[in-house]
């Protein structure tokens, strides 16, 4: 089975644009709102959204952080190999702020559960909303849902959603890849 392109470069940027306008609709000036990208791959989306938001609102003071959740995972000591942690940089106050968590793909929901735990280490947010580019609709293992969705995909377990970014992979696109069954 071939790889399918879910979003090409043009559609990806239209989607990001639309997500930004949805965020502005709900959060207006971003005075009490902060954006946090989840490592390792949510940070490319969160950086794009951060840049686009600054362009649209002309407000350079929107806080953007990156969060690594490796130490909050629920599968520590249950895997053959140990995941390597990435950097965390949250140099602003979370207390009583609206937090927008950003990740590229929402699949089982376990990463986001870990991210919620990790955020609590920085303070008590006023509320937390989730923004994802791709929602793999029927694969949740925990009761987690996204507030802002780029597009939904119904993928089987042998398929993988791969999000590519110009800065990192040379091209903007989202692919549905058939992987080999173990």
């Amino acid at each position, binding site marked *: 089975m071939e790889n399918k392109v879910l979003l090409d470069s043009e559609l990806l940027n239209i989607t990001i644009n639309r997500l930004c306008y949805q965020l502005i609709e709900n959060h207006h000036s971003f005075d009490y709102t902060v954006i946090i990208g989840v490592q390792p791959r949510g940070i490319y989306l969160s950086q794009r959204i951060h840049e686009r938001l600054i362009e649209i609102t002309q407000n350079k003071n929107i806080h953007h952080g990156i969060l690594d959740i*490796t*130490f909050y*995972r629920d599968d520590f000591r249950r895997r053959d*190999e*140990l995941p*390597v942690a*990435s950097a*965390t940089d949250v140099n602003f106050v979370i207390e009583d702020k609206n937090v927008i968590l950003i990740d590229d793909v929402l699949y089982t929901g376990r990463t986001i559960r870990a991210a919620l735990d990790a955020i609590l280490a*920085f303070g008590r947010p006023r509320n937390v909303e989730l923004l994802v580019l791709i929602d793999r609709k029927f694969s949740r293992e925990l009761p987690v849902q996204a507030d802002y969705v780029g597009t939904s995909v119904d993928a089987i377990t042998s398929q993988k959603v791969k999000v590519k970014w110009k800065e990192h992979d040379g091209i903007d696109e989202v692919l549905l890849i058939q992987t080999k069954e173990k």
Partner: protein
Amino acid sequence: MIPRIEKRKKINLQQEQQLSSRHLLGIKGLQRSDLELILTTASNFKEIINRPIKKVPSLRDVTVANMFFENSTRTRLSFELAEKRLSADIINFSASGSSVSKGETLIDTANNILAMKVDIIVMRHSSTGAAVFLAGQLKNYPSSAHAQIINAGDGTHEHPTQALLDAFSIKEKLGSLEGKKVVIVGDIMHSRVALSNIFSLQMLGAEVMVCGPTTLIPKHVQSLGIKVEHNLRKALEWCDVANMLRIQLERQSLKYFPSLREYSMQYGLDKKLLDSVSKKIVIMHPGPINRGVEITSDVADSEHSIILDQVENGVAVRMAILYLLAGKS
């Protein structure tokens, strides 16, 4: 129970890596990739210990026994704090006040503790090789074979966690260890800190020199591939980093120099000597400091000194070691 319709294969997007050994008995048993993994993971934990809530839940299901058969301030507290920050359960054992005074052996003490479902042992012992000995013996007992051992200093053998935090501190201050010149000054012969540092610094690409009176430098130490110098000024002119060791009065039975005063005159670091050296040197000390003997207060408390950074980094490095070892089981 509802059966799964499709068997889900874990698709992992993060890079994965592991330590090559399930114990940490010495730097000698590790590879360069292990050292680099520990140092990288330690920088993640350093960020965590600077947050408002300094705890992560990773070692929630792990119990650690801190078995200290020898006195310690830094190492013991540092390990305890690292374990607590990882949400592990801790039990503390110190030899004084235990059944060791009734003649209970090391193996029996360890087996009894492990029978209480302890996962990791952090041990400091005055006998050289105690950690390696214990690791070898525990394999023979089914209820203890799962245990992992971290050597917190055994006699005059190794002190791997100290060497790792020293390497981390140098890397933090100078950017990298490759090509850096490090001199270790003092009682090299009796120092487990010196030996572990020699192994780790070389493995990470640094050049190592030892400096001290001839009576305190082992005879064939050059066979480790290091330089030897007996003049402190020359050593300081050569190095980028000076790691000052404490004169171990509690470990030496013979006198290796005429008096403490003469030792400080020849091998003690004071502000006058430090200022007279042409380049800026980073000053380190594993602690506890004998102020006025191997180092004076104005040097220990100066901007050249990273002694307290070493202590802060010790917690992060020990967290990394505990995390990586626990993840190996």
